[in-house]
């Protein structure tokens, strides 16, 4: 009897060893993939990353020179997309958390946000093309790309703002209302300020997302080459993400311009990762403070 149990235990412990081993290997694979990608791009991209690379326009059919126009294009795109998505997203999130009562309307809005979040980026591109370009008649430009990108990051902003608002303790609202302050004033002076850092995290994450996405701008205004910086929102533009795609697949001399490609990839990664790091730091900071988290 006793030996039987030990044998059973031994067998179970052996299974455990195998299972835990597999878990460790899987996790190691994930980490290694991350390190491999980052390592490859950092090591091969670093030599290209000079001041000239960032401050010069592409030259000689994009086989030489820098990525200034792409960098500027991406930054303008991100700023414009945010100025569309942030106000809209905050309003929708405030509606969902502060105003909407449980019921059909709220459920429909939440479903809509979920579906928007799951919609492939290329579908946003198609929509931007059909609606902003063909239907409204705007030229394929920085503006149409930014509007499309704004819609793409809208669900991210709504969800993170909602989370931030939900984490503001109900007692804050009750205390304010008890003082005779109206709902909107409570939201404006009590709830929103308390949720501020959480909302900021969401905005920062969507900066990274907007800078990295390619498919929506591919259909709505980003171009292979544009000889100058965009002079208005109605002008076509170059972007880092699209530039990397073009250089790696359709460039004039794909093998020779690997340096430019790796450099562009590195700039994109630095941009996105620094946003992620700031977001992680912010989250830790306000978690310590206790406000804005559950």
């Amino acid at each position, binding site marked *: 009897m006793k030996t039987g149990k030990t044998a059973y*235990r031994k067998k*179970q412990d052996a299974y*455990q060893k195998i*299972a*835990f081993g597999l*878990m460790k*290997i*899987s*996790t190691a*694979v*994930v*980490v290694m*993939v*991350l390190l491999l*990608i980052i390592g*490859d*791009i950092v090591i091969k991209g670093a030599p290209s990353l000079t001041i000239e690379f960032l401050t010069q326009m592409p030259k000689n059919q994009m086989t030489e020179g820098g990525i200034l126009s792409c960098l500027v294009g991406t930054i303008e795109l991100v700023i414009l997309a945010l100025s569309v998505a942030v106000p*809209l997203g905050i*309003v929708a999130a405030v*509606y*969902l958390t*502060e*105003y909407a009562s449980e019921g059909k*309307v709220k459920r*429909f809005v939440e*479903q*809509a946000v*979920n*579906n*928007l979040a*799951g*919609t*492939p980026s*290329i*579908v*946003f591109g*198609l*929509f931007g093309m*059909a*609606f902003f370009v063909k239907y409204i008649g705007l030229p394929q430009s920085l503006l149409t790309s930014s509007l499309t990108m704004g819609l793409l990051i*809208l*669900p991210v902003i*709504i969800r993170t703002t909602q989370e931030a608002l939900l984490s503001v303790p109900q007692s804050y609202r009750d205390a304010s209302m008890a003082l005779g302050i*109206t709902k*909107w004033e409570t939201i404006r002076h009590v709830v929103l300020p308390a949720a501020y850092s959480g909302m900021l995290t969401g905005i920062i994450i969507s900066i990274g997302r907007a*800078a*990295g996405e390619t498919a929506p701008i*591919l*259909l709505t205004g980003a171009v292979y080459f544009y000889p100058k910086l965009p002079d208005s929102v109605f002008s076509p533009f170059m972007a880092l*993400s*699209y530039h*990397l*795609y073009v250089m*790696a697949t359709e460039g004039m001399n794909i093998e020779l311009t690997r340096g430019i*490609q790796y450099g562009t*990839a590195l700039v*994109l*990664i630095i941009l*996105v990762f620094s946003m992620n790091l700031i977001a*992680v730091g912010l989250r830790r900071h306000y978690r310590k403070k206790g406000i804005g988290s559950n």
Partner: protein
Amino acid sequence: MKRNMRNFNEKTMKFLFFIGGIGTILILLLICFFLLAETANFLKTYPIWDFLTGTEWKPDEASRKFGLLPLLAGTFITTFGAVLLAVPIGILSAVYIAELAGPKTAEILKPAVELLAGIPSVVLGFFGLVLLVPTFQSAFDLTTGQTALTGSIILAIMALPTIISVSEDAISSVPASLKQGSFALGSNHWQTIYKVTIPAALSGISAAVILGVGRAIGETMAVMMVTGNMAIIPWSEPFLSSVRTITATIALEMGEVAQGTEHYYALFTIGAVLFLLTIIINGIADAVKRKHHRGE
């Protein structure tokens, strides 16, 4: 007087926020409407049956063949391969992070997963193109290294963070009392994990997998850069042939077509198919997740 003003403000703001909330529904409806409108334009000149069952995608003026099947095959093969790779690795890593890793290790691993999620798809595609494609080409002795397999690997990398973080959430939210019960009965840690913790978190884990699938189906840039983009159903050696996904077809061909041509409408139609697929997938994930929350 002041009170009236305040009341007015309250009502205006309430209305404004309501409009903002409804706005998200409006955007979704607009997307549906414009995709469907262009799809209708396509189906006016192209029989729906030929579209749904066509095995050839040859959009040039002379051939005019818009068969969905080769593109659907490309999308399904790459996604299927990605699932095969990402699901076991993702779930095992999620269990490791939730159950085995110490708090310090978890504090490093979680942001690492987020970082992986943050890599732009075009950068992943680039990485696949310059590193994976040549490696596989020589390893399998292929004419081109741009195959469904490389697509699957890159898609798996993209789906992994979703699968890991959503299942990790589900596993972490299993109540400690359940596990303690199992331990008290003499089970070891692994028995507890696979007999108690994983079954309790199963709906959350399933939702994670489904969301990962949704992510893989909708991905464009990365797949387009590594799959070779041949619109042919690869009956023999599906993983070692070049394939072309729905997303890649739209991205590749939209730049070259004139607005209002049959080809232009055809691209919107496959976009509508893609949109429908992701809506169904997200709906399933949602339903599964809600079941999970009720289960708690």
